């Protein structure tokens, strides 16, 4: 039990904050009252305590009056606690001998009843004066930072973050689940609003990742376990066998040609199943690494063992193809982790009214991206599944966005990519294009201008949420067409618009395994399932777990510029930690009184950060100060009172309670 | 008129200090003597809301001297509450622990508490009338023998019951843990010592008490004789049983007046309250409460060793039965109405308990690992009754369907005796106080009148090393003391 040992000399300082406090709380009375409290040596009120003269006053009192405790009654500690701790330090007093009393945000600003406000302030100061007597001198520990960084996800976010760090001379491990990096961006044809070709801007970055000496690229790989804490993470990565050895393969692709499958029969993931691939394949021509993958699900050798293995012949003395390849595990130590795990496109089948999967001529936006792409399945020709070229096309916005039945959020990019697709379809086919939107959202550089451009191109815009897409013709004009039923909220009537092709602008969702991933990395998901940033404005790429940062759509839907910007920010945050060389431990960490701990283990599962370890030798618990975030949950749980928390000792809180309730 | 009062307090504590108030009439003749119990704790009330399964441990705190009795009665009440029958091994472990407890408790009373009255002698200086005096009389090695015996018995109770004071083994449908072969061996060893010890004790009683005609006269004297009903638990052969059986009541003439299942107790036993004491007085409903009076017309009855031997027709073990026959032969046959005979009856019971210990310790079934029948029935109501060392003990619970106590009725052993104790005190006072003269002897005599019952009114307890200073004040109606008699702990008597 800690003691208010020695002679306690408290200085109480009441801030007017101009009139913010003084207009409601009788600061003179408060200061006078404070002077009457036990152990209070001096009590002053001042116009702006946070000003330099205000801080100097405190500093001087500490030196002249030998104060060893300070109570500041002013604004919220969230605002100026650090300011006043520094003031104490400047007076050679340990900064943690400070206790702040919030008489502005939580008193003068929330009531007009002056006597009540003053009374409240007195109670709180009394409590603080009792508490501060039991405050302790504390030092914050330093944890060194391992300069290596892991980037999880090889989309544009991961790629940009990895390159930024690597270019700054930091070791980077880039882990991608798919056989190639590139992510969704690699599937896009053009990018809005500038309409420059996605591949053209992406692929150079992909190859520089491949060739960067500071980047270790692991594709076809997944993180399976994360231990440790900021500066000192241990990460396990599972590497799936692609049956072609990266170090031996030259990327000549002879094996693909020589595969016993003369015709590609397997639906091609990269082309959204609109094209076919062979059992041995590369996702797309610019794939990085340019190393084929064998898909054991469809490879005859794996299924029956009765293949001529022409691929192995073709590879010849390179012997790059190794059908005995096994899953391997890498373990690396890094100081920071950047999560850039991206998003999942909304599954259009979840909105059955729009007929996706029912009517062959209903497409998703991503499929159309491939259709309009020169290197796509149709070589850039927009032809329907029945071979026709569409004369009329309807683009339905907000599929799986802004929808109570699916996802409530706006996916941010759909309006713009719909406009882009409208433009491209018109360009490729000259078809009449209808956009069906709820609101047109074009907040971005050049976005609104792009919208105007489309209007000039005579693209039709119908405001209204589409009710259904049907092939049920009500008059001859609708024969062999898909009819889009919608309430035109501008015209104020329900319309039936027959089209040849329907494009569903599907929204962005968290990855299916976002929940497992968040647990593995000890971070939080916001409602909706995207990863939660530490602060929406002031710490948008940080998480509540130090040394774990977010980039791209795993944090929420965003377009490429924002994604890249965020990736850069995440890299910068990591660099800041790395270059500082260390992080400070929490001052309010928990600690175990080992001599009296009975080893009941109640505390161990309390800690979400695995900071409480059970020492098998001593049969006692121990808190790792580097991992402890200082929540104090284990302290409240410890049945024998053998875990304490700096800054929030039981004794200090009991004193505060007593102070509040005992009218001195 | 000159209404004078004599106050004796504290007497041996019965839930707080027992207190005796004696009122004399104008002629200085005892008009009325009151035996007050001035403490109450209210277990019946705060049992409410507790889970039934906690009762064996909570109610054992009624009495730290006979916690095992409360624990056992409570556990049996839980069996009834959940309608479960414990496996044979569990039932035997319970009775084994219970018999062990009986030997220990009876020994404690005989040597440490009541015994000194006789072993050392009523006329001996009070300072010697305690366990040390007993040791002096019977020899130091005997004294150590007594202490060692008690320790070994308590060790066994810890071994099988978790704790000796406030045991934890009782659960509805069984006991908390089985006994191992080693445990059983330990019990066998100590059980045979216990039998030998009980015989030895009986020997002491015969040598020191029965061979002294003064003592025998004292036991038979009218001052300590009440012709009341007697109740005790008997097995199917009407032999004494502490753990289980039917309750049998015999009339003052020794004939069976009633025999009933424990759960019918409410049909037979009533509780009478007097506003001047916290203790309730039990009586036989069939006869009714007729005040503090003896005879067949009064509902007053008696429990504990004397009563058990009266209510039964024999003991279930050979050596004890032999002792039982000799006891009745010597005291003029059943029923024995002499309160002080309790001391002898107690030793006979000690022998029975020891023999029973031996029987159970030798039972191969004792170490069967199956000691629990898990309850399945919805609990409603349950009665559990055992013979505690100081008499019949009733626990009666009602619960809700979750097994939470909604009402608890507890009749503790000495409560059954309360009326007879009060009568004993008044009779002794009347016999000994005449013409306002208060002879020194009064003090010891009154003391013995209730100590013979070894009264343990739910945590009432005993006088340890038996020197008990008493004071009698004789006051005038205005409360001014006319005479004060004091016997100090050194036994010396002063008149002030």
């Amino acid at each position, binding site marked *: 039990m800690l003691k208010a040992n020695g002679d306690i000399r408290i200085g109480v300082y009441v801030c007017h904050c101009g009139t913010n406090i003084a207009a409601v709380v009788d600061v003179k009375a408060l200061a006078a009252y404070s002077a009457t409290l036990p152990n209070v040596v001096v009590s002053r009120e001042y116009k702006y305590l946070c000003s330099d003269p205000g801080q100097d006053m405190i500093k001087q009192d500490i030196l002249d009056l030998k104060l060893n405790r300070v109570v500041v009654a002013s604004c919220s500690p969230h605002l100026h606690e650090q300011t006043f701790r520094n003031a104490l330090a400047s007076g050679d007093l340990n900064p943690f001998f400070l206790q702040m009393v919030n008489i502005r945000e939580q008193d003068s600003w929330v009531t007009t009843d002056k006597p009540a406000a003053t009374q409240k302030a007195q109670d709180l100061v009394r409590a603080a004066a009792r508490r501060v007597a039991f405050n302790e001198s504390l030092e914050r520990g330093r944890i060194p930072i391992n300069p290596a960084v892991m980037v999880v996800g090889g989309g544009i976010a991961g790629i940009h973050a990895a390159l930024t760090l690597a270019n700054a001379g930091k070791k980077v491990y880039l882990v991608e689940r798919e056989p190639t990096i590139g992510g969704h961006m690699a599937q896009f044809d053009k990018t809005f609003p500038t309409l420059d070709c996605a591949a053209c801007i992406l692929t150079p970055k992909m190859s520089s990742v491949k060739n960067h000496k500071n980047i270790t690229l692991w594709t076809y790989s997944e993180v399976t376990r994360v231990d440790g804490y900021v500066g000192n993470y241990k990460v396990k990565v599972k590497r799936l066998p692609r049956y072609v050895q990266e170090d031996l393969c030259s990327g000549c692709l002879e094996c693909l040609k020589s595969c016993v499958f003369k015709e590609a029969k397997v639906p091609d993931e990269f082309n959204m199943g609109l094209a076919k691939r062979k059992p041995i394949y590369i996702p797309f021509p610019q794939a990085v690494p340019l190393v084929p993958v064998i898909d054991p699900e469809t490879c005859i050798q794996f299924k029956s063992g009765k293949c001529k293995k022409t691929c192995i012949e073709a590879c010849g003395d390179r012997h790059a193809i190794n059908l005995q390849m096994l899953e391997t595990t890498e373990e690396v130590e890094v100081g920071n982790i950047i999560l850039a795990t991206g998003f999942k496109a909304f599954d259009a089948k979840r909105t059955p009214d729009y007929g996706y999967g029912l009517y062959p001529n209903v497409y998703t936006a991503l499929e159309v991206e491939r259709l309009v792409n020169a290197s796509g399945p149709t070589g850039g020709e927009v032809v329907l599944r029945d071979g026709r070229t569409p004369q009329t096309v309807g683009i339905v916005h907000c599929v799986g966005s802004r929808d109570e039945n699916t996802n409530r959020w706006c996916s941010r990019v759909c309006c713009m990519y719909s406009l882009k697709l409208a433009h491209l379809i018109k360009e490729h086919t000259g078809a009449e294009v209808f956009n069906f939107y709820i609101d047109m959202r074009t907040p971005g550089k050049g976005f609104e201008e792009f919208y105007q451009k489309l209007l000039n191109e005579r693209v039709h815009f119908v405001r209204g949420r589409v009710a259904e897409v049907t092939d049920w013709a009500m008059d001859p004009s609708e024969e062999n067409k898909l009819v889009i039923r919608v309430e035109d909220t501008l015209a104020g009537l329900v319309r039936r618009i027959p089209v040849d092709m329907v494009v569903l602008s599907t929204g962005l969702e968290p990855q299916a395994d976002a929940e497992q991933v968040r647990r593995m990395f000890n971070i939080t998901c916001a409602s909706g399932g995207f990863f939660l940033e530490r602060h929406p404005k002031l710490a948008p790429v940080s998480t509540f777990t130090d040394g774990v940062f977010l980039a791209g759509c795993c944090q929420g839907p965003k377009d490429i510029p924002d994604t890249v910007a965020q990736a850069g920010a995440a890299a910068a945050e990591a660099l800041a930690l790395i270059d500082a060389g260390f992080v400070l431990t929490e001052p309010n960490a928990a600690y175990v009184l080992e001599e009296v701990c*009975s080893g*009941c*283990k*109640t505390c*161990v*599962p309390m800690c979400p950060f695995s900071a409480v370890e*059970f020492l098998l030798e001593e049969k006692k618990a121990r808190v790792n100060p580097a991992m402890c975030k200082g929540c104090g949950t284990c302290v409240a*749980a410890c*049945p*024998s*009172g053998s875990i304490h928390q700096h800054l929030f000792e039981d004794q200090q809180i009991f004193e505060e309670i007593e102070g509040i309730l005992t009218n001195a | 008129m000159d209404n004078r009062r004599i106050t004796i307090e504290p007497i041996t504590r019965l839930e*707080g*200090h027992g207190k005796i108030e004696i*009122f004399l009439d104008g002629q200085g003749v005892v008009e*009325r003597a*009151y035996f*007050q119990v*001035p*403490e109450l*704790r209210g277990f*019946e*009330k705060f049992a*409410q*809301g*507790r*889970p*039934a*399964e*906690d009762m064996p441990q*909570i109610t054992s*705190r009624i*009495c*730290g*001297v006979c916690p095992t009795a409360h624990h056992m009665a409570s556990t049996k009440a839980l069996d009834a509450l959940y309608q479960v029958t414990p496996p044979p091994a569990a039932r035997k472990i319970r009775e084994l622990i219970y018999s062990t407890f009986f030997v220990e408790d009876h020994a*404690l009373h005989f040597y440490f508490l009541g015994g000194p009255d006789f072993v050392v002698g009523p006329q001996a200086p009070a300072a010697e009338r305690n366990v040390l005096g007993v040791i002096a009389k019977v020899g130091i090695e005997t004294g*150590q023998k007594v*202490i060692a015996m008690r*320790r070994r018995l308590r060790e066994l109770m810890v071994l099988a019951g*978790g*704790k*000796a*004071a*406030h045991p*934890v083994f009782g*659960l*509805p449908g069984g006991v908390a843990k089985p006994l191992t072969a080693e445990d059983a061996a330990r019990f066998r060893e100590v059980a045979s010592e216990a039998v030998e010890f009980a015989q030895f004790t009986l020997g002491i009683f015969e040598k020191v008490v029965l061979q002294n005609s003064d003592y025998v006269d004292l036991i038979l004297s009218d001052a300590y004789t009440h012709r009341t009903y007697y109740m005790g638990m008997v097995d199917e052969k009407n032999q004494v049983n502490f753990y289980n059986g039917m309750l049998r009541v015999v009339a003052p003439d020794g004939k069976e007046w009633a025999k009933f299942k424990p759960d019918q107790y409410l049909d037979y036993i009533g509780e009478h*309250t*007097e*506003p*001047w004491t*916290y203790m*309730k007085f039990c009586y036989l409903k069939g006869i009714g409460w007729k005040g503090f009076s003896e005879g067949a017309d009064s509902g007053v009855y008696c429990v504990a060793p004397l009563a058990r031997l009266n209510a039964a027709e024999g003991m279930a073990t050979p050596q004890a039965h032999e002792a039982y026959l000799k006891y009745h032969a010597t005291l003029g046959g059943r029923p024995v109405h002499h309160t002080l005979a309790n001391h002898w009856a107690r030793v006979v019971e000690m022998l029975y308990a020891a023999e029973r210990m031996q029987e159970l310790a030798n039972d191969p079934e004792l170490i069967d690992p199956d000691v629990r029948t*898990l309850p399945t029935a919805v609990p409603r109501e349950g009665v559990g009754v055992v013979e505690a060392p100081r008499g019949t003990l009733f626990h009666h619970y009602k619960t809700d369907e*979750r*097994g*939470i106590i909604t009402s608890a009725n507890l009749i503790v052993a000495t409560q059954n005796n309360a009326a007879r104790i009060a009568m004993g005190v008044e009779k002794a006072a009347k016999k000994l106080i005449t013409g306002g003269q208060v002879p020194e002897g009064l003090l010891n005599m009154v003391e013995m009148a209730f100590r013979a019952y070894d009264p343990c009114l739910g945590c009432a307890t*005993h006088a340890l090393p038996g*020197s008990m200073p008493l004071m009698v004040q004789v006051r005038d109606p205005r409360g001014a003391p006319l005479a004060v008699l*004091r016997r100090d*702990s050194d036994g010396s008597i002063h008149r002030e």
Partner: protein
Amino acid sequence: MKPKVAFYWCASCGGCEEAVVDLDEKILDVANAVDIVFWPVALDFKEHNVEAMPDGSILASFINGAIRNSDQLKMAKLLRAKSQVVVAFGVCAQLGGIPGLANLSDAKGIYAEVYKDGVAPERLHQDNGHSLSLPEFYDTVVELGRVIDVDYYVPGCPPTPKIIGAALGVLLGSDLPPKGTVLAPDQALCEECPRKDTRPEKLLLKEFKRVHQVVADQQTCLLAQGLACLGPGTRAGCEAMCPRGNMPCTGCFGPTSRVRDYGAKALSALASVIDSDDEAEIARILDALPDPAGLFYRYSLPSSFLGRRRME
């Protein structure tokens, strides 16, 4: 001249006296080492014998039992005056003990339950001309420390011979521990429990069991078996008698020196092993702990922060 000691009991069961007798052979040594000047269970001095003694003439008074009526209060104050050291002996004196459960009700409630036939004891009663008195029966049971200044505490229900022996050793020794010390180890019971190692490092439960609902394994941690064992929050010293008897600890040794309200901490610790984030499921799990007051405050209600149920 041997140091004078006194024993006294208030609202208690006599188990503490038995515990002293359980010193067995050692009791003779004690009898030789000290001069017992007051012990109602043993030597029935009248109150005024004590009154006659000079203040502080008794070296140590060992008082067991809670304070439940006016007699006990009077005697406790008297002994305090006469003694240099007062030792609260046993959990009733230390924390209130089982008699303290009466604080869930009050005098009125208890009378109504115990004296159903309408007649109830009266403090002063005239029985055809004879005036008889009884001590005042309080609504609230309190622990000894609440009514007099207590120097040391011996925990347990009852204290074990080992604890008593050690305590006597300390008190008869030369250097006395600081005032207010509980004369027992200051760690939780798990330290002494033979089952300690069998508790999983991350024990989380979806279900609690009541003792009658399960046949407990004799080796495994009882809490790990779903039984509400209070060992983790209870002071060591008894050497885990109840767990050795295959029953959960019920907390009779009270809290460690670092805990102010035994029940609150025990409650917090037990709730901490619940493995659910869903309120309805948590409620279902808690139904297996139907009596928190009786479970967590079985021995310490009077000394707890709340002390008693709100008076009706």
